[in-house]
């Protein structure tokens, strides 16, 4: 267990920079999730921490020790790979004991640790099987076990659940969370799945094109996204974001509707973000946005309405109660909850 410090990390391939200076201080025992779309550099960042990719500039400290030039084996880390990377010619037991044998640990202790991990991961019946005789979920657990038996300073997971089916993924997610609570291991977890990111993380790094757009707790990221990218990436269904014009402190929406918004600049154009659940259906008298419903999806507890702002072609998603009787063709007036709207600069995409 250790704390990890990333300082201005950069990575270039053949002169092309792909990681543009990521800094973060990860506390001992913290669970940090690196999330972003594919190609954003999240796996590269993790592999740099593991030592599988070189570092172009910046420093990585693990447990107070600069590890920039250390081989992976000298960094005291363990990693779970996306394809699990189990050694196919070794049994489950041998797979888990491999790293321990290399570190010249006495045999009884190896056996004890493997047994303990096997119990925790419910792998005892499979210890003598080869990986190919295991199901996807079992292989995933073996990969977890192989990482955990070594009790490393830091545990790195690279999209560990992406090869599992949806049901198993939920199960394993809960198991990983549970395991983290039990072991208190400093963990870095890469995923593109925002549900995994939101549920597992103590803190999130939202990456986009090699930049850490925001580093914060899941609820902070959700409530106060630092940029338009983060706002659009986190949340399902996605946040409604469109351009509005400011005029003497009021906003002119597409279609010419006026709305008083606190904190809006005196003039110019800005991007307005509204989460589907932050829109309330009101009557036409109050300041509101009229929309024409195009379709309604009933999900049981909730329903999602999709409509266009009258007089424009801007599509809005809004959450309705499951009992809503609204249907296609209805005209609704919706108003954002005060204090729950997000403004972003057009030029920089940053939150205003």
């Amino acid at each position: 267990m250790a704390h990890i410090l990333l300082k201005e990390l950069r990575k270039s391939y053949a002169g092309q920079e792909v990681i543009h200076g990521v800094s973060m201080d990860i506390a001992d025992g913290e669970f940090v999730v690196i999330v972003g779309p594919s190609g954003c550099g999240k796996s590269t960042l993790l592999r740099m921490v593991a030592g599988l990719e070189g570092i172009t500039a910046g420093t990585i400290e693990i447990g107070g020790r600069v590890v920039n030039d250390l081989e992976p084996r000298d960094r005291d880390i363990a990693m779970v790979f996306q394809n699990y990377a189990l050694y196919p010619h070794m049994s489950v037991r041998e797979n888990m004991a491999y790293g321990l044998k290399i570190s010249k640990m006495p045999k009884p202790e190896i056996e004890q640790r493997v047994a303990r991990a096997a119990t925790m991961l419910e792998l005892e019946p499979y210890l003598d099987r080869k990986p190919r005789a295991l199901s996807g979920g079992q292989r995933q657990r073996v990969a977890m076990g192989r990482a955990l038996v070594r009790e490393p300073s830091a545990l790195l997971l690279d999209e560990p659940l992406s090869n599992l089916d949806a049901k198993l993924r939920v199960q394993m997610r809960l198991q990983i969370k549970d395991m983290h609570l039990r072991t208190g291991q400093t963990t870095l977890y890469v995923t593109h799945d925002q549900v995994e990111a939101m549920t597992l993380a103590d803190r999130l790094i939202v990456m986009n094109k090699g930049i850490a757009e925001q580093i914060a707790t899941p609820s902070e990221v959700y409530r106060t996204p630092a940029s338009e990218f983060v706002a659009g990436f986190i949340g399902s269904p996605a946040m409604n974001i469109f351009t509005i014009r400011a005029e003497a402190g009021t906003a002119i929406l597409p279609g010419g509707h006026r709305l008083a918004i606190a904190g809006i600049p005196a003039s110019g154009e800005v991007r307005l973000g509204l989460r589907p659940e932050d829109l309330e259906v009101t009557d036409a008298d109050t300041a509101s946005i009229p929309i024409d419903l195009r379709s309604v999806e009933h999900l049981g507890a909730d329903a999602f309405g999709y409509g266009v702002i009258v007089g424009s072609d801007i599509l809005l998603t809004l959450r309705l109660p499951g009992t809503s009787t609204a249907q296609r063709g209805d005209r609704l007036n919706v108003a954002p909850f005060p204090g729950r709207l997000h403004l972003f600069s057009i030029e920089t995409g940053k939150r205003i």
Partner: protein
Amino acid sequence: MNRTVFPHKLLPWLLVTPQLAITVIFFYWPAAQAFRQSMLREDAFGLSTSFVGFSNFRRVLSDPNYLNALQVTVIFSILVAFCAMSIALFLAVQAEKIVRGKGFYRTMMIWPYAVAPAIAGMLWLFMFNPSFGTLAWPLRQLGIAWNPLLDGEQAMGLVVAASTWKQISYNFLFFVAGLQAIPRSLQEAAAVDGASRRHAFWTIVFPLLAPTTFFLLVVNTVYALFDTFGIIHAVTGGGPGKSTETLVYKVYNDGFVNLIMGDSAAQSVILMVIVIGLTAFQFRFIERRVHYG
């Protein structure tokens, strides 16, 4: 997948006929001929033959020259197979590490395979012939009494080197393919697990290469037993004395030079039995340790 079903019974036979014809004409028929001939004795002028049963075999197996050829073959085959495979594996592993010019390096490595055995033999002869060899003089300057025409061990070294050189390409190709089939992430996992490169190679990569290695072991054994004839013929002609006379070379020598057809046929039958036995042994006992991914 849909199975294609041919409408009548003749067509499938027709389609495999070319391959069957080749196998029968070039493999089974000569083998049968050898069997027949091994039981016959021919007079010196080739005018009459008589059936002698197994007496050719008896004579061959009690011939000290034959036992010498057997010993030479064992030493030669083990050396060639081991050197050709280990050097090829080393080169293949090194080739994996190259970043720039990988294709060029690989192409250059594969070239020797295109050279015919006799030509390869001549090439080595021109380099190492004690009187006109390009490298013979420098070797003598280094204080080595280089003369493979007199020294049996040097002659053996020369034919082993030439045969190995020629087979490395083939082995290299298969090892490169085998290495590429091993996921990179396995080596990365081993690196994270604390293994040094050397340790990861012997505990992860080498065991996973076993199917390739086993296949090459069988192929190289057969190569060393048969296909090296051209090289031996060009470089040493089995000499000096009989120090590089392998079984297959003796078959040729006795049959086509000394014209003792019966003995030669008996030897080739024995050789066939040896190769079949050896291959069966390899599949029975070594393949068990092979892990197919």
